[in-house]
Structure formats: structure tokens, C-alpha cells
């Protein structure tokens, strides 16, 4: 009977979503995203890198070369000069966008070691190395200058997708999760305003079915937008079960978190500030997406953190199955914790305020 009630509630919520034009909004936003990915955002963007240079030679010819380039305005990179290994490591750790250049040798340079963060595009790497060979090769005269590379975080992203497609996990997360947050709140407050939640409370229906049905309805809405965006950007050749599974679970969790927060306020205007704040906090893991070096523990504890990285792995598999399964496990665990908390919060609040 509980399952029957849950299905009925879900069907009712889907009907309200369609009639409240929420589906229209979601489809429209999905189509805008398709347009952005396909026609607006370029496949690659050139970001001016910062080079950490440690010239160990006595003549410091490479250093002088770079300084001259900077002074002459010919350098297409910012240069940070260091003199010790500790300073080199420290400078590299500051920002995930930095490249390292260590020049080894006695009086003249003999070997140049390029230090990567690990997420650099192979194409970018090849271009950089070719440029360095061209610029620094003549410094050794007849003797060949040897090149080597090292990577601080190997395997972070050996094969990066084009920039426009790399935005997909963020766009999907934003629409299925974050827009879901606002729509879930709107759906909840429309019931609260109509008083239908009060009418529901004098039926045998429980809060677990009520909350789950809303979350599942928002999850299904997320699947619609995800399908549209994915189909018209990367096509059919992706891991659909993983993408849809992660999106669905993520939307369910975000909706539950939203409902708990919305339940604390009487009107949607009272909730608005908290809703925007919640949206910002839950969206913080997108920073880690673009800067993998920035992933403090507190950020990883946010329920949205695993969602974004699971989506990335689902769209652009690196073979690290553990990323996907671990993230799905973490989302499921969050769901198991959040659902009873949501039921408890609703019960206390509804009874206290007789909603």
C-alpha cells in the first residue's frame, strides 16, 4: 500500500510539474545549454600559464632569457623565479594552473625538466615542449639539450575532453541539481500555500512517501534535461546508465536537502535568501572541478562533491571505476542519512506549526 501511495504521489507531483510549467522551464534551459556547448563555448581555451622557473646553472642563461622576454613584453606566460627546491615545490603547490621549469647543468644548461600538474591536455604539453626546444635549444650550441618531464599528480586527466564538452558535468549538475533545488522549493510552497499538505496529513499517507515522491519527481525531471543536453552534445556514445543513475540520485538528494531547508520557512520569499545561499554552498565543488588541486576536506563532505566528479567520470571515463562507484556509494549513503532526517524535520515542524 505504501508503494501504491508513493506511486500516486509521484504521478500527482509530475502532473503538477507539467501544469506548473516547470517541465517547460527545464527543457528550455536544457536547449540553451545545448546551444552554449555546441555554438558558443570554444573547444579549447588558452589560459596564460604561470611558469615557476628554477635555473640551477651558474650562468643562469635561461633565467636571463625569460627575464628579457618578460621585459620586452614577448612572454606569453607569467614567470616566478625561485632558487631552491623547497621554494620550487611551494610555488607549484599554490595553484593548479602552474607549470614548473627546472634547468639543470653546470655552467650552461644541460637538461630541462618540465613539471606538470597532471591535468594538462597532451596537445598542450606537446606544443609547450616543442616551443621550449626551439627557444632553449640554441643555448647549448652544438651539444644537444635534453628534455624531461615529470607530473605532480599523474593520471589526473590524461585525456582531457574539448573545453566545451568538459563543461557538461557542470551544466548537468547545475540544471538537474541546482535548478531542481529551486523547482522543488516552488513545488513545496505551492502545496503549502494551497493547504493541500494539511489535507494530506489527515490521510493515511506518511511523510516518507510524501518526501520520496517529490524527490523522485524532481529526479525524473532531471533525467529529461540530462537526456536532452547529452543527446544533442555528445550523442549516444556515452555511459547512459551511469550518467542517468548519477543525475537521478543527485537530484533526489538535492531535493531532500532543499525540502528540509524549505520546511523551516513559512513562505518562499522567506526561504529565498537561504535557498540562494544553499545553492551557492552546494555548487562550491564546481571550483574543485576546474581546479583539482583545491579540494579541502570540508568541500569533499558536501553531498554535491561526489555528484560532480561521478558525472565527469561517467561522461569522460578515465578507467577509474572506483571514482564512479565510490561517488554513487557516497550519494546513496547521503540519501540514507538525509531521508530519515528530512522525515523527522518535517514531522516536528509540521506538527509544531500545524501546517
Amino acid at each position, binding site marked *: 500500500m505504501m508503494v501504491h*501511495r508513493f506511486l500516486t504521489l509521484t504521478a500527482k507531483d509530475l*502532473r503538477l510539474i507539467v*501544469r506548473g510549467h516547470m517541465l517547460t522551464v527545464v527543457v528550455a534551459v536544457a536547449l540553451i545549454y545545448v546551444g552554449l556547448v555546441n555554438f558558443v563555448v570554444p573547444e579549447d581555451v588558452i589560459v596564460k600559464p604561470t611558469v615557476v622557473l628554477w635555473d640551477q646553472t651558474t650562468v643562469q642563461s635561461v633565467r636571463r632569457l625569460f627575464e628579457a622576454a618578460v621585459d620586452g613584453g614577448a612572454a606569453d606566460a607569467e614567470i616566478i623565479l625561485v632558487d631552491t627546491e623547497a621554494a620550487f615545490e611551494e610555488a607549484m603547490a599554490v595553484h593548479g594552473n602552474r607549470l614548473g621549469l627546472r634547468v639543470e647543468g653546470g655552467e650552461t644548461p644541460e637538461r630541462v625538466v618540465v613539471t606538470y600538474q597532471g591535468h594538462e591536455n597532451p596537445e598542450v604539453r606537446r606544443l609547450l615542449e616543442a616551443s621550449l626546444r626551439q627557444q632553449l635549444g640554441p643555448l647549448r650550441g652544438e651539444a644537444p639539450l635534453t628534455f624531461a618531464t615529470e607530473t605532480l599528480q599523474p593520471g589526473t586527466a590524461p585525456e582531457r575532453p574539448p573545453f566545451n564538452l568538459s563543461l557538461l558535468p557542470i551544466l548537468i549538475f547545475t540544471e538537474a541539481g541546482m535548478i531542481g533545488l529551486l523547482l522543488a522549493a516552488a513545488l513545496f510552497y505551492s502545496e503549502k500555500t*494551497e493547504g493541500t499538505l494539511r*489535507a494530506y496529513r*489527515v490521510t493515511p499517507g506518511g511523510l516518507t512517501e510524501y518526501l520520496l515522491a517529490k524527490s523522485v519527481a524532481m529526479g525524473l525531471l532531471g533525467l529529461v534535461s540530462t537526456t536532452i543536453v547529452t543527446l544533442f552534445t555528445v550523442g549516444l556514445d556515452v555511459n547512459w546508465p551511469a550518467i542517468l543513475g548519477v543525475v537521478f540520485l543527485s537530484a533526489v538528494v538535492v531535493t531532500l536537502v532543499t525540502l528540509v531547508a524549505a520546511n523551516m520557512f513559512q513562505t518562499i520569499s522567506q526561504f529565498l535568501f537561504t535557498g540562494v545561499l544553499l545553492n551557492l554552498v552546494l555548487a562550491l565543488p564546481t571550483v574543485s572541478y576546474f581546479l583539482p588541486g583545491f579540494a579541502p576536506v570540508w568541500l569533499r563532505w558536501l553531498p554535491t562533491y561526489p555528484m560532480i566528479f561521478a558525472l565527469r567520470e561517467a561522461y569522460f571515463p578515465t578507467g577509474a571505476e572506483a571514482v564512479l562507484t565510490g561517488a554513487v556509494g557516497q550519494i546513496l549513503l547521503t540519501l540514507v542519512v538525509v531521508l530519515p532526517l528530512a522525515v523527522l524535520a518535517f514531522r516536528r515542524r509540521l*506538527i509544531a506549526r*500545524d501546517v
Partner: protein
Amino acid sequence: MVIKVEELYYSYGGERNAVDGISFEVEKGEIFGFLGPNGAGKSTTQNVLTGLLPVQKGRVEVAGRDMRRAGHDLYNLIGVSFENPNIYLRLTGLENLQFFASLYDRETADPMSLLRKVGLEEAAHQRVAAYSKGMRQKLVLARSLVNRPEIWFLDEPTAGLDPTTTQWVIDLVREKRDEGTTVFLTTHNMHVADALCDRVAFLNEGRIVAMDTPRNLKLRYGEKLVTVEHRRDGRLEREVLSLSDERERERLAELVRLGRLETIHSEEATLEEVFIKVTGRALQ
């Protein structure tokens, strides 16, 4: 007893208890009116009886279940009609009833038959947003009957309705009572209460100040009056005489003796007048 309330208190945290130690019982098949002005504690009591508010102090039994421990299955037995028409405006009348009917664990009434019963058959497929207030109130009443309740809670069921619809509501309540349904009616409309209730309780500032049948209350608290019409010098005159006043009783006897009386009517107090007499305050 299908409803039993003993020493019920409820407080919202203010200086005065919203419900202040009330006790009453409602028998099966009875229409019990809970009357009082706004803020008297009527709705709070009904909300406790229907589980929308917890029992803070006292004892409440509904359909044989202690409301402190009653589970969701209680709602299979009761129907609640709210004062404000709380229905899904984006769903049609039929969809509203179908949705609520699907939530119960017992055999429910056919939604279309219910709509026919409340005169909304033609509007069944219209979205409720397009319904008038009266139509919405009828839909709320229909919804509260969808599970064929044994106890029917009605909160101001005629508020804001026109006289025709009000009469229709009165007839519907009588019909359900005749079918064996117990009715708990919360209202400040004394005419509706007088027309419907087997017993009424007057609630004032959270306390029950009088409880009996409407007739007994009127007899106990109302003044016994007669209105007479008689002719004097060919002119028709009208007088209201109190039977509890000795001089006025003598005046009535004189009119009878002289054979001048043309009409004579007994005048009962209204429930509203009784309420004012008991509480010292008006209902509105």
C-alpha cells in the same frame, strides 16, 4: 463513545491556554456542534482530535484510539473538511478526488459518484482554479467523504456560502447522519448548529461553558415569551409578553378572558441569544 475527551489542555505558549481543561463525549451517529466565537479554541480542539496537533495534556480518544499513540490507520476512519478550501488548484475536481481516494487503505467511494452527489459532475474535468468558492467548498466536502468516514469532522462548512448552498450542506450532513456517520461540527453559525446538531457545546476562552441539546439550552437559558395580536378600537395591536413576569402573565390572561386575541405565538430564544447570555459576548 466514538470521541472521548478528558481534561484536554492546549497551549501555543501564550499567557492563556487555547484549550483549557475541556471534557466531552460524542456518541456514535450523533451530530455534535462545537460552537464559539473566533479564538475560542474550537479549531485547536478539532486539530487535536484529528491529529494535526499533538495532545499536550489530557486524554483524547477517537474511534477507540488514544490520540497520543494513534497511527496513520486512524485516518481510514475519519474524514476532515477544512474551513479553507485546500485543494490542488492545478488538478481537476475529478483528479483531486482520485488522488485522495488512492491514499486510503480501505474501499473508497467512486470519485465521479461523489462529484455527482455534490453537484460538480459537469465541472469534473475542469481545473479547480476555475471553480467558484462554493464549488471549491463542495469539493472539499466531497473529498472528506471519499473514504466513507465513520467520523466526519466539519470545520465551518458553510462559511461564506450562499443560503442555497448552505441549505444543501445542511441536507448533506443530515443524510450522512442518517447513514450512521458521527459528525463533529465546528462552527460559529448558530443557525446551522440549531438546524443540525443533536447536542452542542459552547466554547468560550478555551472552556466549555454549556453543553446540552439546543432545545434544552434554549429552555434553560432563554426567556419564555409569547407574541400576541389583538384588536382594540378596531386597530390591530402586537405585544410581546414574558411568561416569567407575573404582571405580563396577568395581561395575557386578561386578553384571553376578554376574547380579543387574534393570534398567539410562543417565542423561543435563539442559540445565539443563549450564547450571549451564558458567555456575555457575541459570536461574531
